[in-house]
């Protein structure tokens, strides 16, 4: 029976690079997918494109492709990625300059596809597009809205593969669609074959966070029984024509694949397991079963699906004020008490000197910073403590005040305040709205290089 082998080369924009090279070289892959575009990442990329029309793609695109393409292209492994971010056309041009000499050396031609059409900013800026989180219209936020990108499904990626693409570079496309597309293409799945589309989406969901399924972020709160995390291998799936799969990794790489790691990842960021809507299908995870078939081999079957949602989800990036963070440490006898006193002083000073905050919090790192005082049981006073003050404000001058007041503790606060670090960044918040499918028109732009 024909199977397709798909590797996952990145779980987020800044992920490690060597595991993808290892997969391309030793994974016997047909496809290697790079998921590098979190919701906020595309809004940041849009800002970068506004500053320079030739940018706006993933900042590690060049480094990743220079490392991976020689191994991938010489083995005819096709690449699919969302590293195009806010500018897939510029990203494709950039990849062409890297792939060109490799294609020449291999004596073959290459097709590179850019997928556009996810940018719907102009459309949602007018009319009555409501944000699901706040019930405001996008239009009411005016120039604070800096990006709006619809989640595309697998079909433009399938079109690109049908046209012979060796490398497919998209922007905002559903993560799972990048894995579903090669399956739909290879097995000629119909776009209303909901069961198979559901299974293919589940394969994508399992793989899209890369190292999280091979033992990274496996929390059993005991001694970690996952080995060699510093050389964690990234996963691959061997998928059959019905969408059932085996999750595995390159032999000899670090980490481990078990029913436990796969179950955690299956439900990662899932709400109702019977109802996981993506652009291509509403996947149903509730009947999924798994079995350990061998070392680092888990069989997955039993996925299902129902018709796709009628509308597409749009990620809207909104400029939303400023976030300040500042920290200072205390050590030795009375460190915690001095830390608490420092918090009180900064709170009082900010009431005197700053215009107001939408939110402000004071943490003692090592004491109560993560989960508050009730859940944070502590046996003995620690030797040192780090005070953290974080606040969100409309005005940047108020945000700047936070760091100034914490820094002033050096000479005006409790004794021995040490190691101040301070920062202010602009808040780019993300909300969502829905658009009818007919308003989103994906396009494939193909270029051929070499030969």
């Amino acid at each position, binding site marked *: 029976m024909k199977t397709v082998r798909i590797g996952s080369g990145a779980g987020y924009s800044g992920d490690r690079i060597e595991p993808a090279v290892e997969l391309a070289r030793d994974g016997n892959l047909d496809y290697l997918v790079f998921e590098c575009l979190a919701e*906020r990442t595309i809004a940041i990329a849009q800002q970068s494109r506004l500053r320079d029309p030739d940018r706006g793609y993933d900042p590690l695109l060049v480094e990743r492709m220079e490392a991976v393409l020689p191994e991938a292209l010489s083995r005819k492994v096709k690449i699919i990625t969302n590293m195009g971010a806010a500018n897939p056309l510029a990203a494709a041009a950039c990849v062409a300059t890297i792939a060109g000499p490799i294609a020449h050396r291999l004596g073959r031609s290459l097709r590179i596809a850019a997928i556009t059409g996810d940018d719907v900013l102009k459309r949602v800026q007018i009319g009555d597009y409501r944000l699901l989180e706040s019930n405001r219209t996008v239009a009411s936020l005016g120039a604070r809205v800096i990006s709006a990108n619809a989640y595309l499904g697998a079909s433009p990626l399938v079109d690109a593969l049908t046209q012979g693409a060796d490398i497919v570079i998209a922007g905002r496309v559903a993560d799972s669609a990048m894995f579903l597309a090669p399956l739909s293409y290879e097995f000629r799945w119909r776009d209303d074959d909901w069961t198979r589309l559901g299974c293919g989406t589940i394969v994508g969901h399992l793989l899209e966070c890369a190292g999280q399924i091979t033992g990274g972020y496996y*929390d059993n*709160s005991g001694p970690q029984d996952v080995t060699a995390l510093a050389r964690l291998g990234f996963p691959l799936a061997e998928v059959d024509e019905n969408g059932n799969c085996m999750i595995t990794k390159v032999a000899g790489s670090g980490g481990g694949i078990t029913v436990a790691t796969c*179950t955690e990842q299956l*439900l990662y960021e899932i709400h*109702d*397991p019977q109802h996981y809507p993506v652009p291509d299908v509403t996947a149903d995870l509730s009947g999924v079963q798994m079995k350990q078939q061998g070392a680092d081999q888990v069989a997955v079957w039993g996925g299902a699906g129902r018709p796709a949602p009628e509308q597409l989800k749009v990620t809207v990036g909104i400029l939303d004020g400023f*976030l300040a963070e500042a920290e200072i440490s205390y050590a030795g006898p009375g460190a915690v008490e001095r830390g608490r006193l420092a918090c009180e002083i900064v709170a009082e000073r900010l009431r005197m000197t700053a215009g107001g905050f939408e939110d402000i919090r004071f943490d003692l790192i090592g004491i109560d910073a993560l989960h508050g005082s009730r859940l944070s049981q502590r046996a003995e006073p620690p030797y040192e403590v780090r005070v953290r003050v974080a606040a969100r404000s409309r005005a940047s001058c108020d945000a700047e005040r936070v760091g100034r007041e914490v820094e002033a503790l050096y000479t005006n606060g409790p004794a021995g305040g040490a190691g101040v670090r301070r920062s202010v960044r602009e808040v780019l918040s993300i909300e969502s709205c829905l658009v009818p499918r007919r308003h989103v028109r994906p396009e494939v732009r193909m270029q051929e290089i070499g030969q």
Partner: protein
Amino acid sequence: MKLYEIAHARAGDKGNISNIVVVANTSEDYAMLEAVLTATRVKAHFEDLVMGAVQRYELPNLMALNFVMHSSLQGGVTKSTALDAHGKSLSSALLNLTL
């Protein structure tokens, strides 16, 4: 007994919602957890952190319970002032629950 003695867990974030999947080590452990680890129990454990409702989904095939905790991330990763804006460490906090 602590939850971590019989289960493992993973937290994920979407907007202002955190979900934690709790996976039992054995089918006996799963049956026990299905009976005692209710949404109400989890909401009480996180009373300082979870402002909204907690829903529980059962996946007996996988010996897993999925807890969806609304209004639990102080606005979500993009605007939260929290040190752990994703809520990545919430799984560890839940595993520390005394059964």
